[in-house]
């Protein structure tokens, strides 16, 4: 029974709040609830006070209801026929203005979502693992090269993206309006309105009765750029770019030092020229004027050099190439560029455009320069307009291409896309159309992978920022020589292994110089290759079908 206690103002409290032992049974028993009962004459107990569970619960429920209703009343994102995910702001800005023309032509609405790179790839990866979320999967998505490895762990038939080989082989026929159209040697085109195929012999179009098909997208895109998006011969993405690699350098400072950097054909000559450059400036009170931006500990630049030599740490057949003698040679050489008495490189700080500030200040006088970096240099270092020049990469061996490749993006169609054919047409519109190219040029100068687009004036004209040099013509010239960069789920781990060896090499170079370094690197690399092999064996399925 509730106990009552009187209050001075006439009210009383019924307060049996605690469980009480029943002397007869020895068990605890629940007592009646506590109510503050106001017995002031003329007043009745408030109905709120009589609500079960008490006021706090009512408040919580009220708040939950209000917030719930508010959320429900928020305008829902508009339903669209196609959902397209991109991670780069410049890509979003490129595509948005040209979506209406696609929507009008196709009669389908498109929603473009800009999602941070890591979030996008993680979300998509989780969706691919969870079939129950397939309704949320976009109809097309761009993936950055550093993130794509994770998608390629399952066997090709279970990769979350749709194979594109057939679409690339059967669509995008090359057509010419007449035989005076520009072309390059080896191109095959259909004369518009006819079924005849013409082949370009380097000077003119010649009818080719032996061919029945013109070039399709597959033939029109730089072949090596399919490599990062391919697993076991199945292509899962369309490349957005080529990203050939050059070196940009401060021509004014190198000229003043009496060094002709562009004349260096090999990396050894380049190294020697940079040392001369640094000596000159050290003697004039510039101890922190470094010849080139190179990362001291991260293997990213080293990987670019290995690519130039045709080496991927892990290839598309899961063979490991860390023990290749060329790798040891390159690591030892690279360690000499970033450490020890013959060091020529220093690192720029992270953050967008900070490297450009270092170039402008004359702290770093040359840069590895893929096409995507040009925009940042222009934007963040306007003060050096006219002072930069660009040169192809020096070579290690005469057979090496004078370039490599840095970065990349693909667009793929998830298997759960609602209308894959419409997604494909959207990709064609955004990536390959004239309108798509013009839109791209409003945001970036990134060279498209479609070779005939390189004849656009934007890619052929002189660039005042580079002292009138035709830098994009140079990129276009190098683009066809870009090495194949392969990406597997083990790529990130293999880079970690390279990082371990590079740091040992750099450490040894600092302590003891370069003597015996290459042999030491070889040993370390063999050990790391063994470890990598062990990991791949551990990840492989018993039936042997599963790649790492």
């Amino acid at each position, binding site marked *: 029974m509730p106990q009552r206690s009187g209050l001075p103002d006439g009210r009383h409290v019924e307060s049996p709040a605690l469980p009480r032992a029943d002397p007869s049974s020895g068990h605890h028993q629940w007592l009646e609830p506590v109510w503050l009962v106001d017995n002031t004459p003329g007043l009745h107990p408030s109905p709120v006070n009589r609500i079960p569970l008490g006021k706090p619960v009512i408040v919580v429920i009220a708040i939950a209801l209000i917030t719930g209703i508010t959320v429900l009343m928020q305008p829902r994102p508009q339903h669209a026929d196609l959902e397209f995910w991109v991670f780069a702001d410049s890509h979003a800005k490129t595509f948005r203005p040209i979506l209406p023309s696609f929507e009008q032509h196709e009669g389908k609405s498109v929603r473009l979502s800009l999602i941070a790179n890591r979030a996008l790839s993680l979300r998509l990866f989780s969706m691919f693992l*969870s079939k129950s979320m397939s309704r949320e999967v976009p109809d097309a998505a761009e993936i950055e090269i550093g993130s794509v490895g994770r998608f390629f762990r*399952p066997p090709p038939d279970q990769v979350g993206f749709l194979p594109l080989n057939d679409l690339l082989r059967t669509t995008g026929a090359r057509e010419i309006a007449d035989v005076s159209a520009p072309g390059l040697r080896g191109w095959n085109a259909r004369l518009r309105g006819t079924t005849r195929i013409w082949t370009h012999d380097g000077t003119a179009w010649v009818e080719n009765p032996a061919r029945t098909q013109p070039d399709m997208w597959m033939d029109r895109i730089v072949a090596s750029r399919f490599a990062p998006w391919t697993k076991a011969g199945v292509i899962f993405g369309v490349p957005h770019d080529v990203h050939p690699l050059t070196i940009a350098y401060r021509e004014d400072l190198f000229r003043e030092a009496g060094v002709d950097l562009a004349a260096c054909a090999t990396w050894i000559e380049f190294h020697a020229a940079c040392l001369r450059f640094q000596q000159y400036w050290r003697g004039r009170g510039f101890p922190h004027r470094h010849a080139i931006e190179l990362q*001291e500990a991260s293997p990213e630049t080293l990987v670019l050099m290995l690519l130039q030599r045709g080496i991927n740490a892990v290839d598309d057949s899961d063979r490991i190439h860390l023990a290749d003698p060329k790798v040891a040679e390159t690591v030892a050489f690279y360690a000499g560029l970033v450490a020890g008495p013959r060091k020529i490189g220093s690192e720029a700080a*992270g953050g967008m455009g*900070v490297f450009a500030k270092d170039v402008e200040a004359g702290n770093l006088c040359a840069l590895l320069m893929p096409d995507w970096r040009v925009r940042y240099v222009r934007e963040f270092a306007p003060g050096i307009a006219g002072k930069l020049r660009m040169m192809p990469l020096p070579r290690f061996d005469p057979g090496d291409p004078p370039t490599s490749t840095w970065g990349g993006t693909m667009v793929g169609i998830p298997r759960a896309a609602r209308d894959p054919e419409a997604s494909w047409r959207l990709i064609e519109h955004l990536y390959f159309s004239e309108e798509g190219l013009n839109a791209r040029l409003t945001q970036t100068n990134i060279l498209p992978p479609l070779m005939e687009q390189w004849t656009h004036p934007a890619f052929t004209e002189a660039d005042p920022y580079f002292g009138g040099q035709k830098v994009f013509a140079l990129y276009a010239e190098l683009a066809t020589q870009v090495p194949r960069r392969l990406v597997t789920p083990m790529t990130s781990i293999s880079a970690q292994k390279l*990082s371990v060896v590079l740091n040992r090499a750099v450490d040894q170079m600092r302590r003891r110089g370069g003597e015996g370094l290459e042999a030491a690197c070889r040993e370390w690399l063999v050990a790391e290759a063994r470890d990598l092999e062990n990991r791949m064996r551990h990840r492989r*399925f*018993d039936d042997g079908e*599963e790649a790492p």
Partner: protein
Amino acid sequence: MNTLWRLQHRLAPYLFVLPFVVLFLCFMLVPLCRSVVLALHKTSGPGAMQFVGLDNFEFVFQDDLFWRAVRNTLTYTVCFLSIQIPASLGLALLLNSRFVRGRDFFRYAFFSTHLVGNVFVAVLFMLLLAPRHGLINRVIGAVTPFGTELNWLGKPDLALPAVILAALWLSVGFGMIYFLAALQAVDQELYEAAQVDGAGAMSKFWHVTLPGIRPVLLFLLLVGMIGSFQLFELPYVLFQGPGPDNRALTVVMYLFQQGFETGDLGYASAIGWMLVLMVLAVSIAQIRLTRADRTD
């Protein structure tokens, strides 16, 4: 009415705990059980799963990257805690003193760093630690002979110190607030009694203050230790990966790499359970030591 109240009494506790139980079941227990299953399998995509028993755990023991991550995490934990706890306590003692002007401002200022997230701090320190341009390097260049070229994020030996520096900036104020509350709860009469007994400042600190704030000290140690074992975002954003020579690779980062970058969820789960065992072992050891200390 009586029946209604009896029913309510019987159901109310269950109703109150129901939301937690449902959420716990859905988002904790089921994933936990699932991760045990995953740890015993090789996985590949949504369709391929192969039972491998304890193979994943066996592999963990011979995985040099995992042990590198463990070593980094332990080094971080020890260095971080051995600076964070004294620094927080020192600040708290300073700001507990009546002789410091603007105490409220400084209390807020030191605590405010904790209000920003790990990712923000990582981005901030990327700029602060930049060679040549970063504020920290500029200060170092101005007052030491090292110059402004220290490559904090590129040199293996400086990688962990960079993380610790950022983590301290983030969390010293957090510890300080707890210590302040604990200091204010120490009975002033004990200080007066110690004064009467002729105790000096150090004696008072050792024999009155430290025993008085001991529960908070232990709490901060435990929480700091568990937080350190879970370190992920700060180095991940700061270095955009495992850092030079994997020196910023932590156990959770390695777990993330294995699970979400190389797509091996089975192995990632095994690493997760190894982490659980490590945290459990250290926590039990710490609790036992504390108990033994108390008994003494």
